[in-house]
């Protein structure tokens, strides 16, 4: 392979392969549904994909199904159907799109989604619990609410050696044992602890690589856009967690990013402003939303979304394969708590990355659908601005509902933000 061919193959490989993996995943789910088989439903924050994969059960991420309806421009129909069924316009769009999907017997723009054989809910988002109740009413399938206590105050305020940490970890460990029993009943298979070790090993490799990918974006110019490219990576990080394919994908992604860093190949040809994104993407106008920033030479070098929507995998926690269940409990507590912190204490976590990532400005994007992420953003922004002189933009819309997405208003606000950034830079230089 020539150097040119090597470069052409490598650059953008993560996006190409990620998209292909996604298509393969949905094709497989469609086949599962066509056979009349079922799949385990899980969520991105605390998916316990490691346990599900140990039992070889196909896995469905309803959040990803829902956001895909928005990206593919059909969310409005799904939301309308759920509202006709009785759901308020003020309820989470992800939930409503899924309700409609279930009413449509799994019909989805990327294929057909199987019915749930079981569901694993966590409390990382309270709506997960309410969402699970929807399935409880629709299907005769067990739901397992795996409770993960988060930080009581501050960031990870509970030290690993504290009594509280041990109390939390023990609680999670008991629940994991109970989840395993549920999986045995649903799958008809006996639990194989060596299989769990193997699966955890893949997650260890993936987490190490995911942490590295994010760190590599400290490079200037930045190597990937955390909002667009990052969402593709997140899809793989969730759907293929605990699999060999997932581990290999992320190790290949590290290779791509290291090459780009070494050769100063940026995601933009002319990067002017390095931004952090806080919140959930605006999926109804996903590409256009990003262009509002890239047109000005702005790129998102990091985002809280990369942290919490990977369930805290960005922390790179390494499971102890000698003690797989206890270590899974500890790793879950550590990672999912971090995911929750990156929503509720986002101000403190942003302070930690501003210098390392050379961030020029922060874009806050609270949305109607997600109170978990959005409720504290205005106050977090206020608090951060008191501690650090950094420009920020606060724009509201939604991740699903195009009725509350005004592209013109968003553009006006983004334009004014960049004009301010330019003025600030000029003043600093003069």
């Amino acid at each position: 392979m020539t150097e040119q061919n090597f470069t052409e193959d490598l650059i953008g490989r993560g996006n190409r392969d990620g998209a292909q993996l996604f298509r393969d995943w949905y094709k497989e789910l469609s086949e599962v549904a066509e056979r009349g088989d079922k799949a385990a439903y899980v969520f991105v924050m605390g998916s316990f994909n490691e346990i599900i994969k140990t039992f070889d059960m196909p896995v469905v991420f309803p959040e990803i199904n829902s956001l895909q309806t928005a990206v593919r421009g059909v969310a409005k129909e799904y939301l309308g159907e759920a509202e006709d069924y009785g759901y308020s316009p003020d309820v989470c769009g992800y939930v409503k799109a899924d309700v409609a999907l279930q009413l449509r017997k799994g019909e989805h723009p990327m294929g057909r989604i199987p019915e749930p054989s079981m569901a694993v809910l966590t409390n990382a988002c309270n709506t997960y619990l309410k969402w699970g109740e929807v399935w409880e009413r629709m299907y005769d399938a067990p739901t397992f609410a795996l409770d993960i206590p988060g930080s009581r105050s501050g960031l990870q305020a509970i030290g690993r050696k504290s009594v509280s940490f041990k109390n939390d970890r023990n609680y999670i460990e008991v629940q994991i044992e109970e989840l395993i029993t549920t999986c045995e009943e649903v799958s008809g298979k006996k639990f194989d602890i060596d299989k769990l070790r193997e699966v955890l090993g893949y997650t260890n490799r993936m987490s190490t690589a995911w942490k590295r990918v994010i760190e590599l974006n400290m490079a200037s110019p930045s190597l990937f856009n955390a909002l667009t490219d990052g969402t593709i990576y997140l899809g793989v990080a969730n759907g293929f967690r605990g699999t060999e394919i997932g581990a290999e994908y992320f190790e290949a992604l590290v290779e791509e990013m290291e090459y780009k860093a070494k050769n100063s190949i940026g995601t933009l040809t002319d990067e002017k402003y390095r931004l952090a994104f806080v919140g959930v993407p605006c999926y109804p106008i996903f590409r256009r939303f990003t262009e509002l920033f890239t047109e000005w030479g702005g790129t998102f070098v990091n985002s809280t979304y990369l942290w919490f929507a990977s369930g805290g995998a960005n922390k790179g926690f390494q499971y102890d394969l000698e003690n797989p269940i206890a270590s899974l409990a500890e790793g879950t507590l550590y990672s999912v708590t971090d995911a929750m912190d990156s929503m509720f204490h986002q101000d403190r976590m942003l302070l930690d990355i501003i210098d390392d990532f050379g961030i020029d400005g922060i874009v806050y994007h609270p949305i109607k659908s997600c109170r978990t992420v959005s409720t504290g953003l205005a106050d977090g922004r206020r608090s951060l601005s008191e501690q650090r002189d950094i420009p920020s933009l606060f724009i509201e819309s939604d991740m699903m509902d195009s009725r509350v997405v005004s592209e013109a208003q968003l553009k006006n606000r983004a334009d004014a933000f960049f004009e301010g950034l330019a003025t600030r830079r000029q003043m600093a230089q003069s």
Partner: protein
Amino acid sequence: MSKAVLDKWKDSDLSDVLLMCRDLVEDPEFPTVKRWREEGGKVLGHFQVYFPEELAHAAGMLPLKMRGASVEPILADARFGSYLCSIIKTSLEVVLNKSVQLDMFVTNPICDAARNLGPIFERNFEFKSQILYLPQNPNSSGSATYLAGEYDRLKQEIEEVSGVKITDEALKNSIGVFNENRALLRELYDLKRDTPWLVSAEDAYSLVCVGSMIPREEHNELLRDVLPKLRAQTAKEQDRMRVVFEGGFCEQPPLDLIRVVGRSCYIVDDDFLIGLRWILEDIPEDGDLLMALADAYLEKSSYSPVQHDLRKPKEDMLLKRVKAARADAVVVSAAKMCEPGLEEQVAYTHALDGKSLPYFVTEFEENMNSFDNLELQLETFMENLLFA
């Protein structure tokens, strides 16, 4: 230790006592809390729905249920985005505007908005602020042990703030005080259910609510005095529909709304301030007291849209409540922008349809001040049922 914070009421007529309670409920300045502090007392504010108030009480603190207030969130608005319920904003507002001064604040993850309150209070105030993680998997065999451990952690935090060591003796006494309180509230609800013409909906509500902001010994004294007087009234039963009001588990409807509903029908059961009535039986006053508190939360408790318990599907629980109250219909309500409440409305209405039970769907906000349309719609609904 208990300081009296109510105005002199013992020699007053029943109507004056009830008026005092209504006034206190609607007063956004929380005068009873101010009096408590003027006497040197410390205050632990806890957000809806349930909090083990016995722990604060045993440390000599006043547990104050943060239930919002009928105020404009002028200062708080800048700290929140759109699409949020009112109680989140006004609970912060009353502390920012110093109507209420706290020594500690505890929220719990009842919903996605409420769990954010812990960090928000932490960023805005010097006093200790945190989240109490009540178990969201009460079906796990590990939940009681976990919760007892969590209560132990909370107990230590409260001791630090209050400067008072919580002894077993003090906690036992507090559990006794709260057991009596819950028993008296059950009596009040028996009265509402069996003879709703003897207590108006807004008076019953006020009598419960006032307990959330005064020492519980004083509340017990008040209820012990008022309940016999209510029973002794000679009012006659009217030809009204008996309804259950569902949707008041967190943000509270304004008293005027309760009055409007109560004018059209008898509210014979409800979930107003359900956290104060969460525990359904006496908690043992001996043995491992923290485990007893934990066990009561998990095993002897009511239901709400914000607790996930496979043993308590909410729509089944509502149907049980309707049956136990011998209700003819249900007001299925939710606070505006309250996601759990709005989601539960769907399950409730589908279940009521399945049983052919009539219901009236509405939304409310604690700051609403126009009730004409609601009253008209509700009266039409009731007339349709009465003359069907």
